[in-house]
């Protein structure tokens, strides 16, 4: 009898106890004052993670968790209040802002870095420059062979991101301006595109500059960053040079955003301020992105940053 009782006790009791412990743990975690949850863009995740590490060393007691998942994931999380800061490599869409308002969230976006999107190819491919228009044609599937843009007789393999990626949307709106060719391989993140193009002589891909350039400005071995020209009359320039970004000569540039709820500002104020400080901007440069340009510094100033 006793034994049976004990078994029943443990069958019912153990899960109950675990549940209680879990509840206590999770509630204490979310109650901790300094805990900041950051979610979203895979492009931004490494740089933000690095800044969070430095910030946490500097301010004992601060706890920051950074995860990726894509800009769409971050924005969905800010709308549903499951994150404090949303990393997004694109601005929030009007529809998303409406949804946020309907949920009682008032999202404020700041720009903490500038990203040059680099178009990459295999070093075995002798093509060095493309115009914006040509890249669009390639990704729409109108140019199918490298020989059409002065390269070897080699079929083009398209590599791109998946629709939950801010980079996917940004590149489509600014470069492709149409639907991607259906034959494009939709890769799961920047790193996979890099790996694929390294292995594929006819491959072309687009990734954040931070993913293909190390902190000394050297391009990842086994890859080539194509110089891009705005149109046929402009000079093709490389995104690895800060001057081309600041002058606007490099055409595929985008601001990197972070969104937070206005009511939640007190919690994230310190960290966002650190990101925009000279020290934070220095880390951003080391991660292969570019410091916030004057245009976006004015944009941030509207919110007092």
């Amino acid at each position: 009898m006793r034994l049976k009782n004990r078994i029943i006790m443990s069958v019912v009791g153990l899960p109950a106890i675990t549940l209680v412990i879990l509840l206590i743990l999770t509630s204490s975690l979310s109650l901790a004052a300094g805990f900041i949850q950051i979610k979203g863009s895979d492009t931004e995740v490494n740089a933000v993670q690095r800044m969070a590490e430095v910030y946490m060393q500097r301010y004992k007691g601060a706890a920051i968790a950074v995860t990726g998942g894509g800009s769409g994931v971050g924005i969905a999380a800010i709308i549903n209040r499951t994150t404090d800061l949303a990393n997004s490599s694109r601005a929030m869409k009007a529809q998303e802002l409406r949804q946020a308002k309907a949920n009682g969230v008032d999202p404020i976006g700041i720009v903490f870095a500038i990203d040059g999107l680099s178009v990459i190819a295999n070093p075995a491919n002798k093509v060095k420059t493309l115009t914006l228009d040509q890249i669009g044609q390639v990704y729409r599937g109108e140019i199918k062979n490298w020989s059409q843009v002065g390269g070897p007789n080699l079929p083009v393999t398209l590599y791109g991101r998946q629709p939950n990626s801010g980079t996917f949307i940004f590149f489509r709106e600014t470069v492709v301006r149409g639907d991607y060719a259906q034959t494009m391989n939709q890769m799961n993140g920047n790193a996979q595109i890099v790996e694929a193009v390294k292995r594929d002589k006819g491959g072309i891909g687009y990734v954040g500059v931070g993913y293909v350039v190390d902190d000394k400005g050297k391009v990842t071995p086994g890859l080539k960053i194509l110089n891009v020209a705005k149109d046929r009359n402009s000079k093709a320039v490389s995104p690895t040079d800060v001057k081309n970004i600041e002058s606007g000569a490099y055409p595929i540039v985008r601001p990197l955003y972070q969104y937070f709820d206005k009511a939640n500002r007190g919690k994230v104020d310190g960290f966002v301020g650190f990101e925009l400080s000279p020290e934070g901007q220095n880390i951003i440069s080391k991660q292969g992105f570019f410091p916030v340009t004057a245009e976006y510094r004015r944009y941030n100033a509207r919110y007092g940053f």
Partner: protein
Amino acid sequence: MPGMVSKANKSPLPPFNKRGMRGDFKPGRFRWQKAKERLIASFFFFNGMVSIIILAGIFSLLFSEGLPAFKEIHFSDFLQSTWNPTSYVKATYGLGAIMVSTLMVTFGALLIAVPVGLACAAYLAEIASPRVREVLKPIIEILAGIPSVVLGFLGIVVVNPLIARAFGIPNGLNALNGCILLAIMSLPTIISLSEDAIAAVPKTHKDASLALGASRWQTLVRVTIPSALSGIIASIMLGMGRAIGETMTVLMATGNAQAMPHSFLDAVRTMTATIAIELGEVPFGSAHYHALFVIGFVLFVMTFLVNLVSDIILQKYQEVEQ
């Protein structure tokens, strides 16, 4: 109460009381015991029902969340080939390409896994010495425990360049890659259950065959395997169920192109991968959101049918056994 009996046997018996019973039993205690037993029985019954309730819940959720999609999307739109709800030009909701992709990857995986799995099962059941079997079986079962994301990684780093080199194509992120990885995933199920089925064939069948002058190979192929066929088919169906619903591996290794695949060397995007990629970013309550549940529903029906068929076959097989 087996526990009671053993206890009573060990200790000297207590004397009979007035009611002609031994020990300190009281009628009230019996009643409480019965009530308790009934309580416990109903507790376990409830536990048994939980899985049925969850299944019915998932089914009704998929159905009710998928149904609103038909308000905005015509049924015939789902029959088109291309799935591109976030299109720059015009959203399309065709299930053709993703269904073909899922079926290609699943059946391709079975084409690889069935011969290999069957051969391995036959070897384990008929030829391997008990020692070898004791070592091999647990190892094969460990294979089932490899996380799918690890296999997906292997698909990118190992299988991808191998396929590219073998077929002289620019990259190996295609249906074939997915087939190979899913074959590896479904092998443990197929081997383990087929081996059980083959080992369960009565020895007398084989003895009779051998006595009639058949070779060991003839006995295996014409007597043992046909006798175990229902068990083997059930194992294949279960392996297929595993392959059809797998997400992470195919998401990583098959290239995820939207185009209708024409060969196993084309990149494919399966139904599971489509849901996994898009559900995270889709605006809640939109046509696209509900359309993803339609995919989920179709996938659920597909796996349900596979499991149902395997269950029916397994049932038959057990009847034959008895």
